[in-house]
């Protein structure tokens, strides 16, 4: 259940938010929507793809965090996450409603005394709240800009489906479908004028970041494999 209300410095003066990354708080996601501004920070950790919104079919950009439903291989419970955390996870229980900031009072991040304060006792926003406001602004503008980026690529027919098949040491296989990436063939075949235009708009950089981020797929698979091995070892030990 959610209970989203506009944030109010009077009503919510004492509210605290547990900002850290944890499965308990909803970070257990296989795929999370991202914006183009984040690509430089993302591409060194995560594969970045296009995917389709299940409700509208529209393309969006997302970072892949795991292979299975609810699997975020970057979570290190009890420790702050070392990899850059996508804005959509950083935002925690916050939403925008028009120009206002809203918060989900039923979020598991807000059940008690622990966590970051939103307001000083005098009712001034804390540095944490300011950082959330900045993140939300960045997300909102970024989503619009990312959409224009995607539309441009679609017009130039630069997006193609990609099928990721991986096998793990426990003998299981994963066939990840519904992801799309840059078509390098189409990119090579692009007329000069289009290439120049992509460069001038800063899109060529984003395109190459996406292509480079594909290299994170095997890294992610190794991460999962290590977990599988660790698990089976601990099971083996338990049996001894």
């Amino acid at each position: 259940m959610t209970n989203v209300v506009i944030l109010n410095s009077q009503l919510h003066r004492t509210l605290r938010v547990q900002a850290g990354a944890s499965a308990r708080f909803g970070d257990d996601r296989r795929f999370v929507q991202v914006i183009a501004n984040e690509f430089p920070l993302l591409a060194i950790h995560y594969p970045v793809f296009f995917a389709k919104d299940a409700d509208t079919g529209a393309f969006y950009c997302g970072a892949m965090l795991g292979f299975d439903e609810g699997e975020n291989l970057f979570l290190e419970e009890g420790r702050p996450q070392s990899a850059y955390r996508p804005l959509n996870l950083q935002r925690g229980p916050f939403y925008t409603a028009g120009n206002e900031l809203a918060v989900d009072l039923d979020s598991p991040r807000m059940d008690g005394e622990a966590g970051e304060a939103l307001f000083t006792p005098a009712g001034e926003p804390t540095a944490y709240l300011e950082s959330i406001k900045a993140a939300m602004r960045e997300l909102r503008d970024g989503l619009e800009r990312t959409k224009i980026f995607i539309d441009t690529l679609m017009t130039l027919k630069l997006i193609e489906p990609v099928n990721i098949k991986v096998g793990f040491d426990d003998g299981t296989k994963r066939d990840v479908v519904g992801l799309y990436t840059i078509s390098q063939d189409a990119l090579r075949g692009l007329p000069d004028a289009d290439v120049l235009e992509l460069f001038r708009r800063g899109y060529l950089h984003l395109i190459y970041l996406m292509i480079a981020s594909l290299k994170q797929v095997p890294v992610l698979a190794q991460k999962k494999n290590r977990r599988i091995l660790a698990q089976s070892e601990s099971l083996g030990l338990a049996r001894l």
Partner: protein
Amino acid sequence: MVRPIHNIVIVGGGTAGWLTAGVIAARHQGRMKTGFTVTLVESPSIGIIGVGEGTWPTMRATLEKIGVSETDFFRECDSAFKQGAKFARWTTGAADDAYYHPLMLPQGFTQLNLAPHWLGGGGGDRTFCDAVCPQGALCDDGLAPKMITTPEYQAVANYAYHLDAGKFAPFLQKHCTQKLGVRHVLADVESVIQAENGDIASIRTKQAGEIPGDLFVDCSGFSALLLGKTLGVGFKDCSDVLFCDTALAVQVPYERASDPIASHTISTAQSAGWIWDIGLPTRRGTGYVYSSRHSSEDAAHEELARYVGPRIKELSVRKIPIRSGHRELFWKNNCVAVGLAAGFLEPLEASAIVLVELSAKLISEQMPANREVMDIVAARFNEVTGYRWGRIIDFLKLHYVLTKRTDSRFWIDNVDPASVPDRLKNLLHLWKYRSPWFFDEFDRLEEVFPAASYQYVLYGMGFRTEVEPEDNEGTQSMAARLISENATLTRQLRAKLPKNRDLLQKIFDHGLQPI
């Protein structure tokens, strides 16, 4: 001197004319630079027939090839999905008598013929359609054949379209003239000028003078202006086989904007014919196709009113005379006929537009390089097209000969052996002992109706092929596996596919992605 074929002139701007123009122009885009032209001449005063709203799945490939966006097509032609046809009351006439002719092939069709296994009891108490294919269940549930994330023209379950015929021709016109370089001339053809060898040299129009051409495509509708009137090609009447000769058409609004949209054509047998029911997002297109030898217009109107309900009083019912049959030749001299000008059969399996597509494709692929080789191409075109008409007639008649209805002369006359083509008789005889499969009977590359279609109709209508249990022995376990795979697939698709209306609304709101 070799006379190259450069200027294609199409007469008629209905569904047939614009589809043919689009298919030819798209295929020969590259030659447009070197003087190849496609001109479509259409009368500003004679309207198009404006009915014909059910297609075959081939339409997906046709539209994609001519470069149309499927999203635009859905939005601008009020199009909807069609996953086959449901035939109600054709066998016994009882209220619960119905079967599906879906568009998906039986599970594993290219590996194994499941029909003998189903006949031997391998499908349990399921109908043939339900035992071998999920689509009947999807239609029953009112589900769409894909999802909003499925790209344009791709399917989860095979599909064709229902569309608004009044909007389809203008939609194609816009695309053909703006994107494909087709020249559009609004003018009435008044006379035709022939060369000494009988070829059409040019057409003389009231508003645009004389228009010469190398190849003329007659898409002038029932009037068959060029092939029939000018070149005198005769008409082969088929009303001794297919009796229906009149249609009463009426468009029925939904009662509520949220009413479900059927994702299949519903064809309900009546006392002297049958009623079609085609669900578009905006309305249902319905009509009674009947034999005037077996029913008066008043009686037919009454039956249609019973189907549509009292609201029919506020709606306008249009009477359309139809003539079953086709030209004796389809291509003569430098003139080829497509669409109603080539012929027409009652629209029982939506075979008219698919034949337009197949003909247009054949013309564009086989486009004669010059006049000297045209007769060779023409002979082949006539052979293939003649075969197709014959096959369609057989297939339509199949729906009638299997009936057990004896409640009116129409149904009794329909099973009279004198009205059944010899080939169909032979096939029915053969099928008593061996069920049709794609190997033995249907060898043509672009067969209009595959063997699977015959299976769905035969076994949907209770036809029995005698099977010897021993004959099934070697493939029993494979058949059981395919039938159980189909049950699993059916369950999965029913769980994941959206309602037909919901998906159409989403396509309207958000569009489908091209990839």
